[in-house]
């Protein structure tokens, strides 16, 4: 019995599989009517490290270019082949539906970073020493910071709506994370139509460049990580 690091799920194995993690042979494990690509290795499974994360991406991306695959969240480890089957087979209908939805489609990432005055938390709300002492000053500064964050959230939500209106994709193919960190207004995943990822990337870059108060970074195309699970 050897532990298995699981990478991706598909309906059939590809003929030319890439190498697995750390150069090990990648293996196909049947699971009901589906199957999963895994790297076997007890020591590997017990010592997963930073380099393995991006190596997992190399494996998933190579498989994805050969045909429809659902990326599995990293790290996922099964005890053996039967363990993989027990995890995958009960969800076969759902996973088949998702495979059909993402077949041939890739994911773009749009990151909008606060720029200019928007990058300063609580902009427009000066903090003055309150007459009530340090306690009141502290509470006032917290109130101002909260107001600033609410302002920024509203701005980010408006940017998300603007993007949805401007981009030539279905609403169901766009997922946003609003203000996921102090620097980021919006982190958006876009599921590109089959064969149109590069053209859509140009469109996204153009649309995002017109947005005020933010700077845009467009990444991908990648396998459809964000769309491998139901919303």
């Amino acid at each position, binding site marked *: 019995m050897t532990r298995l690091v*699981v990478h991706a*799920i598909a309906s059939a194995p590809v003929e030319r599989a890439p190498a697995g993690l750390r150069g090990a042979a990648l293996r196909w494990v049947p699971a009901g009517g589906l199957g999963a690509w895994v790297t076997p290795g007890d020591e590997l*499974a017990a*010592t*997963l*490290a*930073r*380099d*393995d*994360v*991006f190596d*997992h*991406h190399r494996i998933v991306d190579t498989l994805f270019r050969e045909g429809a695959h*659902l*990326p*599995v*969240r*990293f*790290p*996922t*480890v*099964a*005890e053996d082949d039967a*363990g993989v089957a*027990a*995890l*995958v087979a009960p969800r076969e209908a759902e*996973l088949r539906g*998702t495979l059909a939805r993402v077949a041939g489609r890739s*994911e773009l*990432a749009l*990151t909008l*970073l*606060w*720029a*200019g005055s928007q*990058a300063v938390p609580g902009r427009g709300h000066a903090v003055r020493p309150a007459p009530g002492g340090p306690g009141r000053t502290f509470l006032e500064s917290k109130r101002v910071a909260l107001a600033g964050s609410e302002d920024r959230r509203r701005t980010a939500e408006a940017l998300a709506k603007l993007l949805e209106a401007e981009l030539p994709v279905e609403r169901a193919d766009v997922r946003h*994370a609003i203000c*996921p*960190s102090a*620097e*980021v207004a919006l*982190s958006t*995943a876009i599921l590109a139509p089959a064969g149109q990822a590069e053209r859509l990337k140009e469109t996204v870059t153009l649309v995002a460049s017109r947005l005020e108060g933010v*700077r845009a*970074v467009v*990444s991908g195309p*990648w396998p459809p*990580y*964000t769309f*491998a*699970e139901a919303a």
Partner: protein
Amino acid sequence: MSDLRTLGPDDELRVSLVELAHRLLDRGVVLTGHATISVAGVDLIYLGLSVVLSGVEALVEAKERSA
């Protein structure tokens, strides 16, 4: 991460790597039951549904050093 208010080409690459790392660690099919929760050298701390960037940044910095 450096100050992202002034983006250079290196920062754009770093933003892309952070987005990718976030997807690898926080997206994809979740096969419950046997998922491990740690990767050596990567601090996987979650705030809601979003991986705290410090953990992802450490991953990205390690990749940049090895590149």
